[in-house]
């Protein structure tokens, strides 16, 4: 599919989603879709980083945790509006991502993946030890009792309004990345992906653009985590384990990292499939087996993921090659 076709498809999907999904009428599915949308934002960050820069981040969920943490702390510490807390969360997570990325920017391939994995492991311990703010005192803001209330955006108090608000930000996330891709950073990234040496030789500041990419990925993680905090009103450390970060990357690859619908598919696999399994009383360990098999299959035979295979199918049906 050409770029403009993708954009059109995206716009139509966004309009359809923001009209139909929030009015779905089921409390449970509203909750599932809200959580899925948060993860769409997070997976977008990982997907573009891998597709356009070849950088693997195995710590995205941990960064989501950082964003969620800041959001909750801001909410309970001051009386600022949701949007302001959101911006603070995004900026802090972006800076945090930069700090983590500093050693990684001059490394390539496996070492970058490993350092993000180490970060995920370390953050898992920190979240498990200090938990998430729930209105208590002190820097960590934790009290051993029921959480203090969370202030959602003025225009999005109810669950369905919140979902609509969130879907708008999902579209915004995609739009920001599309904007990047069609301007200077995107071109620099494409060169770096092709060959770092050639990029250096042509005068592209490789470290700068890699940092930009990582920062954007971190910002998106922070955005996702902050919205997740808002949807539940509190967060638990078990959501942000290192194994979750690994699973997120795995499913991003399975879904297809080059296309926005690949990201959506990945989020559906990550959050909707387990919910369905739960509904149908199937053992959640079966989901693990399916994901693992899908990942291996995707890596070996379908590098563009499910989205890529859908693309090929559509192209075949239309009888021409894009």
């Amino acid at each position, binding site marked *: 599919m050409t770029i403009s076709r993708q954009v059109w498809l995206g716009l139509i999907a966004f309009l359809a989603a923001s009209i139909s999904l929030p009015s779905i009428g089921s409390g449970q599915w509203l909750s599932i879709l809200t959580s899925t949308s948060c993860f769409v934002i997070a997976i977008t960050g990982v997907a573009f980083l891998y597709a356009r820069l070849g950088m693997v981040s195995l710590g995205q969920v941990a960064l989501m945790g950082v964003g969620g943490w800041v959001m909750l702390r801001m909410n309970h510490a001051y009386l600022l509006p949701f949007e302001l807390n959101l911006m603070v969360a995004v900026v802090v997570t972006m800076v945090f991502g930069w700090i983590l990325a500093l050693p990684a920017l001059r490394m390539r391939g496996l070492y970058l993946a490993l350092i993000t994995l180490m970060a995920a492991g370390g953050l898992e311990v920190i979240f498990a030890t200090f938990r998430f703010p729930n209105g208590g005192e002190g820097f960590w803001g934790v009290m051993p009792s029921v959480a203090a209330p969370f202030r959602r955006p003025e225009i999005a108090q109810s669950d369905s309004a919140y979902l609509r608000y969130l879907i708008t930000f999902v579209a915004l996330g995609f739009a920001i990345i599309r904007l990047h891709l069609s301007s200077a950073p995107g071109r620099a990234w494409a060169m770096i992906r092709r060959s770092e040496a050639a990029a250096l030789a042509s005068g592209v500041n490789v470290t700068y653009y890699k940092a930009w990419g990582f920062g954007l990925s971190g910002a998106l993680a922070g955005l996702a985590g902050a919205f997740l905090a808002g949807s*539940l009103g*509190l967060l638990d450390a078990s959501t942000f384990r290192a194994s979750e970060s690994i699973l997120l990357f795995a499913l991003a690859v399975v879904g297809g990292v080059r296309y926005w619908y690949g990201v959506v598919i990945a989020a559906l696999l990550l959050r909707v499939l387990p919910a369905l399994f739960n509904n149908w009383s199937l053992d959640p360990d079966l989901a693990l087996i399916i994901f693992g098999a899908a990942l291996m299959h995707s890596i070996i035979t379908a590098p563009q993921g499910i989205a890529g295979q859908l693309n090929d199918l559509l192209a075949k049906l239309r009888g021409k090659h894009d």
Partner: protein
Amino acid sequence: MKTITYYFSLVASILLALPAVAQAAPECGAKTGIKATGSPIKVGGIHGNAAPGDFSSATDAASAYFDCVNENGGINGRPIQYLVENDQWNPELAAQAAAKLIEDENVVAMVGNGSFVEMSVNAPTYKENGIMAMASACAVSECFESSNIVSTNQGPLASSIGAAMYAVEELNAQNISCIGLAIPSVGNWSCGAVESYMTSKGLTGSSVLLNPAAPDVNSGLLEAVASGADSILVNLPAGLGIAFLGAAQEQDLAAVYSWTSSTPLYDMSVPAALGEYWDGKIFVSAELTSLDGQGIDNLNWKAVMDAYADENDPRDTFSQSGYLSAKIFVETLLSMDAEQLDDRNAVSDSIKAINDKRSDLMCGPYYVGEADRHMPNHAGIVVVNKNGNFEVVRDCFEYEGPYFEPLFSTEKALGLR
């Protein structure tokens, strides 16, 4: 000759069948023996069933009891439709489960809840929607310190204090080291209360908090050793508790300290997992009465499980707890006006009005009341692991300590003391 053999075997088979007949008659609800066929009353339940632990036995037992009630006339002829969700220890799934049950299915109450995360996530939701949760397997402080959740089990705080009391009164402990999980609403909360209790007795108490995911329990053990304690209180989930005691076994510390534990180690697979080394050494403060008890409710629980539950459903403390929650809930519904059974607010008011329900499964009376904290179960027994099984060493005793003062004043107001 043949006739004598015939009559002999007839009499023998009748005599042998008698115990089976005596066992197989569970009594539930209105005990009418007629199947309920009216429009169902919807009740919800949430359990956590995924690594690191399975709390589903509570909802299994409640489900079995509700099935039995439905076979015995239901509630004024209406069956109970029990909808159970699994939160898999995931807070998002817990919130989704609550949304499904409360908003989509419009349940009138939650019964038999058992999870590590569900209560902390959903307590505000329950309050907002005016629904009461009669939980059975609680492990976090939010469960006991929230207005809309009340549990038949004790939780780590009460159970640890029971263990500490036994250590001080029977095992001569002067300095207890409480080993707990490094989760503020679990370990810090319960071990902190143990420390306050020790201080109130003029003795010393300290905490060692373990990170649940850390592979190294050794340094936690050494921390306890270095604290100068003479008694160690293991306040950990069963798997981690066994690992901790394994590390202690490596250091041959069984005789050096006196060992007590809160309720998670009161599980039938534990004595075998601990092995001979620990025989007769671990004193566990159980939150309900003995699994082998001969009281009416305990025997009825076994009968209900045998008749209506799956063979593989565990018959453990949480199962007893789930049965008890379900039983008290059904008694409450039976005492209500038939027209109000679908009104969530009316059901919640009736639940809050529960007062002085006694059972041989619980050491004290069960009550709810209008309050911002509920912990009706704060008295228990102590058992010791012996010969691959557990033996009761101390019968029902009430726990003391600064934590329970507010509860005692509520009970005075309700006329329970």
